[in-house]
């Protein structure tokens, strides 16, 4: 993975031969390079422009959304007023949604990654009867459509009286079959059997081996599953939509979708446009910051899922 970008490996000889080979096609190389760069920049514009629109629009009044060009700022800067509106509308329900999202995501991510790490470690490093069968069942469940689950999950939850509680969102989010798969693959690579056997010879209990040796070595995988589950729960829409109908328990996604629906149905309440737009911007910021700072982890996570398949 640690590959030095532009330095050609293979020593100076290879390097000179390479440059001479390149010199032949230098002219065409430059135009090719220019075209590639142009393409990459255009793609960058495509991926970033909706976000730019979101930022610009969050600084506008409702009227300006309609009367000024969408991709540039209006003369007056209305962001602070919009933020104020978002946080105070309907007695500050947005703050509740924001806290709900954070709460659901943090608890689910911590719980799910701990459970998945323990399970992944067990599948990777302990052999026991039925291991591959149980693992195959868990893997197979990745293919189950989420409605096939969400509707009966709702029915099951309502039978035990958990609908419209935070647990209705958190408990199902603790189950990450993909996380177990990732941790199994990771544990197989990152944990040398000799180390575990040495600990066993020294008389450490299986739990102690996991808790004080394995968990530490599995930390990068743990963080990756943590991130994936955090993002998954923060972004989840379908499950909370199904298992809650009380706005006090909505996460941001369901709350904003609700505001959007209202803003489309009642033409009189157009103020909701700015609410939805500014609220969306706020909901996007935490994850973007997280992604920028924790790059290493999500990248390694997406990798080790694919390398060994």
């Amino acid at each position, binding site marked *: 993975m640690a590959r030095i970008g532009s330095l050609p*490996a293979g020593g100076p000889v290879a390097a000179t031969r390479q440059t001479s080979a390149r010199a032949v096609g230098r002219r065409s190389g430059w135009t090719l390079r220019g075209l590639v760069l142009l393409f990459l920049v255009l793609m960058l514009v495509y991926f970033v422009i909706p976000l730019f629109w979101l930022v610009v629009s969050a600084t506008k009044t409702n009227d300006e959304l309609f009367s000024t060009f969408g991709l540039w700022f209006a003369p007056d800067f209305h962001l602070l007023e919009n933020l104020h509106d978002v946080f105070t509308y309907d007695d500050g329900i947005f703050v509740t949604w924001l806290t709900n999202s954070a709460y659901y995501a943090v608890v689910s991510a911590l719980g799910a990654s701990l459970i998945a790490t323990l399970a992944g470690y*067990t599948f990777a490093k302990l052999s026991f009867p039925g291991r591959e069968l149980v693992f195959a069942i868990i893997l197979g469940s990745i293919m*189950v459509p989420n409605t096939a689950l969400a509707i009966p999950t709702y029915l099951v939850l309502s039978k035990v009286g958990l609908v419209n509680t935070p647990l209705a969102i958190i408990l199902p989010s603790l*189950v990450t079959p993909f996380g177990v798969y990732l941790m199994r693959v990771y544990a197989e690579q990152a944990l040398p059997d000799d180390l575990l056997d040495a600990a066993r010879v020294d008389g450490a209990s299986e739990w102690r081996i996991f808790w004080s040796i394995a968990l530490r070595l599995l930390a990068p995988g743990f963080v990756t599953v943590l991130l994936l589950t955090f993002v998954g729960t923060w972004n989840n829409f379908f499950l909370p939509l199904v298992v809650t109908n009380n706005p006090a328990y909505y996460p941001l996604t369901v709350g904003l979708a609700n505001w959007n629906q209202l803003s489309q149905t009642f033409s009189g309440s157009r103020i909701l446009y700015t609410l939805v737009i500014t609220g969306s911007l706020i909901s996007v910021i935490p*994850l973007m910051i997280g992604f920028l700072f924790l790059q290493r982890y999500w990248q390694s996570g997406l*990798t080790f899922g694919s390398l060994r398949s």
Partner: protein
Amino acid sequence: MIPSRHMAKHSQTEAIQQAIEVQELAPPASGLPSALRRWRRWRQRAVIPYLFLLPFLLLFSFFILVPLLYALWTSFFVERLIGGTTFVGLQNYQEVLHDGNFWEGVRNVLLLLFTQVPLMLGLALVLALLLDSQIVRLKTIFRLGYFLPYAIPSVIGALLWGYLYSAHIGPFAQLAELLHWPPPPFLTAAGLLPSIANILTWQWTGYNMVILYAALQAIPPELYDAARVDGASGWEIAQRIKIPLIAPAIVLTVVFSIIGTLQLFNEPQIMTAIVPNLIQDHYTPNLYAYNLAFTNQQYNYAAAVSFGLGAVVFVFSYVFMLVTYRRGQR
């Protein structure tokens, strides 16, 4: 395919372990009664692993297995106003098979699967190869920029594009007006599916690109340095060396895309609020099941529709994996 490889590896280690255990057992090293020893070994081999798995298996059973079995169970019944709930066997499934609404939804997601997914994955592959090649600088900026949409909840992504597509406040319509063109037909009957395809492409290309890029980065450069010295072009290296080497990662992105696309829900659900007259309640099978259950309270039939969709998902991912596996074997 994935488990089979593990299985091969594990049965091997298991065999070795058993061999070791047999060796250890052969001379009675200590004076422990054999029953106690057997219990210890049994505890080591079965009890502790299952104890470790208990938290996961409990939650897995309660939130995946039980709901699945429960849904399967309910799908065999019909609820009538008069007469209550009655067992009807496979009748609901027969109905699904002849349900035009279901198949219309399936047609929509299959259309996306065969147009949007190849486009998106092709783009992701091209971007990953370009960022992996030596002709581009500032790779980090591009990579982060492309990945950014993945950090956005798909609901927010759909909302965002809903505004961008809008004939009133969308910048494209505004530009068109400036040029005295008619507004672009994003939110019309004909334009809707391409519009949704664009949202999906925008949201997921970067994610797939990162998977492919990471796989490319893991290739030891020695593998193609020789080819480069021999004068192979970047394109030849990509085609002959890099793409075959990252085939497992490509397969993974395809399988994820099959599963994700066939289960499409969020985008059409958000679009329903924006253009209610364009998106029927059965625009995708998932949306259909949701509306059957929560708008019409037809839980039994909704369960059957969900399993119908599950079967479609299974068939497509399974067939795809089988085909690629066969090809890999040759």
